[in-house]
């Protein structure tokens, strides 16, 4: 089969897939094709869709590729889906951030960093499959240790865990952005 057809095949598979597809998965599905060519085809599809005039794009997420609607059309899609947009409470986000950056991490460590009991939040994050129990820590009490899941990367559009901004970058971002925004307190004369 010719190269140009491979691109169409890749496009059709990615269109139908219900989760991000990794290269490994594509290699297995398309074993009769050369791996280099598969890569080239995926990139070609991605380039096709990143141009103007498209409502969807092929994004790299959770170690694979997935077609996703463009963020600018979110309002319209919400009319189609009747579910409320995904929202996270600040405590869920704090806990997720700590787990994402410190994993593997125990509940005790999360609670020390947050300064509050986090049992309930951990449970709800587990229920939503955003975090998982990786194992037990080999210290007295054998506490459970937690890590993030593939669903976490999918939900937060992360290519992989390394693509999280480093804490230092965040600090710099926060420093540079907080100054102009800060409203000075009216000082009494």
């Amino acid at each position, binding site marked *: 089969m010719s190269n140009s057809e491979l691109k169409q095949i890749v496009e059709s598979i990615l269109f139908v897939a219900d989760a991000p597809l990794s290269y490994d998965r594509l290699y297995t599905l398309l074993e009769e094709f050369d791996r280099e060519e598969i890569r080239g085809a995926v990139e070609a599809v991605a380039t096709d869709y990143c141009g103007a005039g498209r409502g969807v794009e092929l994004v790299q997420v959770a170690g694979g590729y997935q077609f*996703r609607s463009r963020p600018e059309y979110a309002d319209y899609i919400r009319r189609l889906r009747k579910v409320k947009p995904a929202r996270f409470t600040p405590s869920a986000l704090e806990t997720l951030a700590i787990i994402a950056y410190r994993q593997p991490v125990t509940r005790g460590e999360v609670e020390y960093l947050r300064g509050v009991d986090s049992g309930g939040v951990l449970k709800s994050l587990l229920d939503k499959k955003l975090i998982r129990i990786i194992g037990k820590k080999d210290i007295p009490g054998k506490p459970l240790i937690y890590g993030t899941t593939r669903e976490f990367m999918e939900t937060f559009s992360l290519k992989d865990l390394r693509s999280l901004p480093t804490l230092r970058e965040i600090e710099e971002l926060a420093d540079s952005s907080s100054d102009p925004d800060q409203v000075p307190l009216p000082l009494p004369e």
Partner: protein
Amino acid sequence: MPETQHQLFSDTDSDACLVRTEAFEGPLDLLLHLIRKNEVDIYNIPMAEITRQYIDYLDLMRELNLDVAGEFLVMASTLIQIKSQMLLPLPDDPELEEDRIEDPRAELVRRLLDYERYRDASIQLASRTLLERDVFARNFAVPEAEQAAADSAVIPDVELFELVDAFRRILAKVPLESFHEVGSENISIADRISDVLEMIKQSDAVDFEELFAGSSTREYIVATFLAILELCRLRMIKIMQFESFGRILVKSAIIAADGEGEQGE
């Protein structure tokens, strides 16, 4: 320096009620808020003032009869301990050189900075393009999974602290003391519950502040607020806010109970 600091902390008891409450996630969040609000150096926290403001806040929580989580109390005692430690003269021991005498505030500062870093990271996370909020992928309806998602998508529409904030505004309008107290009139929360229900029944949605109309005493307002919280707990009302710092609306949840699912927490 002490002089100017005193100027900075001019929010004495009279306008303490105007301190805007945000959704504090815990004692560290509250402390950070106080430090940033007062624009003090985090490496040189004026313990006396910050401790006072911190405890004022807990007092308000207690006045509302809200459960002040244990962690807030532990932090209060830590603050007081640090404050008193700072009053003690440094040990006059030449063996202990400066690097060994750690500022009593050091551990707290480390925790605050650590916490701030993760809080900023969590804000960053929330600002990413989120699946099912900003972007959508094709998904295949699995009835069970969909039900689970619908269940977990139900979250309280108004954060507790926004309610508390609204409550503070109402409370601030009432004179702090009244001088011709004859006997305490007993206002029962049960009475207020039925009043509130009656008010809600008459119209579709009632402005949160309207529920306090005609309230003159702090006891009355507190009873009304507790009645609202109780109704919310019993899932008989629904409290909504359409925009940040916008109006808070209260409506009956009994009619809308069928399709709406239940209100979490």
